[in-house]
């Protein structure tokens, strides 16, 4: 309930609460910067790392600061195909963030719909849905995603699908629990008395009260999704090498680590760490602000 009020009416108070923690504020700044960089990647980079015609194999594995045959400088070095690491990291960040966000939003949407329906319908529909949810949750996400990807093959669409499959059940269960509580409140009775329709009650009245805590969970979940994507790509099951995400860049550079070409693996690793950490810090703070008991 506190959460509901904070998100609706007291946005300013909420923002002030958030800003009291300087670390979280800094994390938010970093996150904004990362997002901006990812969005503006095509304009911030000298090279399109996906366009093979722009790569030059003769520029492969140059150390940071080396000058390319075409004239520009590889500030963070180049990889085994002569891909500019700076360009690759920004574009990789774009993919990693995109995959994380999109999969979380989709999973959240599906989870919300299923959870609300389950809570409202009750009876055997509820029982059936919850059994499916249990079934899904009884397996660790990495295992399910791993097997799904092994069976469906590589690709951005496949990995998003796999990440949605492993996440939706979690939201569905959370939403159902929260919705059941909300459905017993007076305002719902009042709405029913006022003759409002089912859908209106669910989506106009119950949903807004269920959302805020869910958004906090989803924030942290984006970080999880990004890490999971990176892990799967590292295992060779995620994205194709021609569209490298941060995880794939790290995996790709792993082979050259011992040979001293550290930049191919270390720089994308730092970018990945920064991203996940910033999201986690922001998510943590959000939760603290929304959970006044711990203040």
């Amino acid at each position, binding site marked *: 309930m506190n959460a509901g009020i904070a998100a609706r009416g007291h946005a300013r108070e909420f923002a002030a609460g958030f800003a009291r923690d300087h670390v979280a504020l800094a994390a938010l700044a970093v996150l904004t910067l990362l997002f901006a960089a990812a969005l503006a990647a095509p304009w911030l980079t000298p090279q399109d790392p996906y366009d093979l015609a722009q790569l030059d194999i003769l520029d492969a594995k140059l150390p940071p600061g080396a000058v390319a045959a075409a004239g520009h400088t590889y500030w963070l070095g180049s990889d085994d195909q002569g891909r500019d690491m700076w360009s690759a990291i920004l574009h990789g960040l774009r993919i990693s963030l995109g995959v994380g966000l999109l999969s979380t939003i989709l999973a959240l949407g599906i989870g919300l719909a299923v959870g609300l329906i389950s809570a409202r319908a009750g009876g055997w529909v509820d029982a059936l849905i919850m*059994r499916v949810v249990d*079934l899904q949750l009884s397996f660790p996400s990495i295992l399910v995603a791993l097997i799904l990807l092994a069976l469906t093959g590589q690709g951005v669409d496949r990995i998003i699908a796999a990440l949605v499959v492993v996440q939706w059940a979690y939201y569905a269960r959370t939403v159902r629990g929260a919705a059941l509580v909300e459905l017993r409140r007076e305002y719902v009775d009042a709405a029913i008395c006022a003759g409002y329709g089912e859908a209106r009650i669910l989506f106009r009245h119950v949903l807004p009260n269920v959302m805020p805590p869910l958004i906090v969970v989803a924030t942290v979940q984006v970080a999880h999704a990004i890490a999971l994507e*990176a892990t799967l790509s590292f*295992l060779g099951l995620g994205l194709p090498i021609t569209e490298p995400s941060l995880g794939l860049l790290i*995996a790709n550079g792993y082979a050259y680590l011992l040979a001293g070409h550290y930049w191919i693996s270390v720089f994308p690793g730092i970018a990945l760490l920064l991203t996940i950490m910033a999201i986690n810090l922001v998510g943590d703070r959000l939760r603290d602000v929304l959970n006044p008991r711990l203040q």
Partner: protein
Amino acid sequence: MLSFTLRRLVQSAATLLVMSLLVFAGVYAIGNPVDILINPEADQAEIARATAQLGLDLPLWRQYLVFLQGALGGDLGNSFVAGVPAITLILERLPATLELALLAMLIAIGLGVPLGLVAGLKPESWIGRTIMAGSILGFSLPTFWVGLMLILVFSVQLGWLPTTGRGPTIDLFGIPVSFLSWEGLRHLILPATNLALFKLALLVRLVRSGTREAMLQDYVRYARAKGLAGREVLRVHVLPNILIPVITVAGLEFGSLIAFAVVTETVFAWPGMGKLLIDSIGLLDRPVIVAYLLVTVCLFIFINLVVDLLYAALDPRVRPEGAR
């Protein structure tokens, strides 16, 4: 309790059925393992012969029926690649994975609980803040990346610990384990630490918030007001209260540790079931994939059972009859 366990069993059996169907259909769609396995000199007739030998020439539904029939009799089929029962392969690798996961859990609990307590008791001190910062870091580092860095620093740069592999094993009650010898232990340290890190961060956060909540409870305030020493308060009132969630989470997370061992085993070339799963997927060795799923599901059921029992033993309020 019994009905609860029974329901779990039925649920897991359903999971297994769904997963095995998925694996069957998926592997069938990817291709024929014989194509990957067979030697270059093989001609069309030999490829067809080998395919028939493995029963892969049948239509998919027949293959699945054959599998079900065998599975009901306790036979999950032979590994295509090794020619021995798939379940044997998995069980052979089980001790290595369990040893790794158990040690990782011990590390996570052994360090996580005290660190979380400190952070919970002194949330505003520099040490509390450092611990929390560390836990956020541990939370954010992808397991595989930490593994690579651990190898790079401790094995290659410093040369303190071996890079990969399991090292020598000693039989303990007929089960090969590596923690009984120095060499084995040295091989175990890096992968176990790697695997533990994420759970360690999780436990620190859990214990910290548990401690903070407990410290705010009336009975703790009362006990402190009564003049009970800090250590006593901790032992009598705070610890038992955080222990229950710790055990629950530790139990539930143990399953995910075993799953995540797939990553750690791949990085450290640890000969456990996770690495076998990855290899088997690469070779489309379907019986082994299915056997892996079976063994993990059984493990999860067992772990959940143990957690439930521990839970009941620790918290008198939880009555076994009250199945959730």
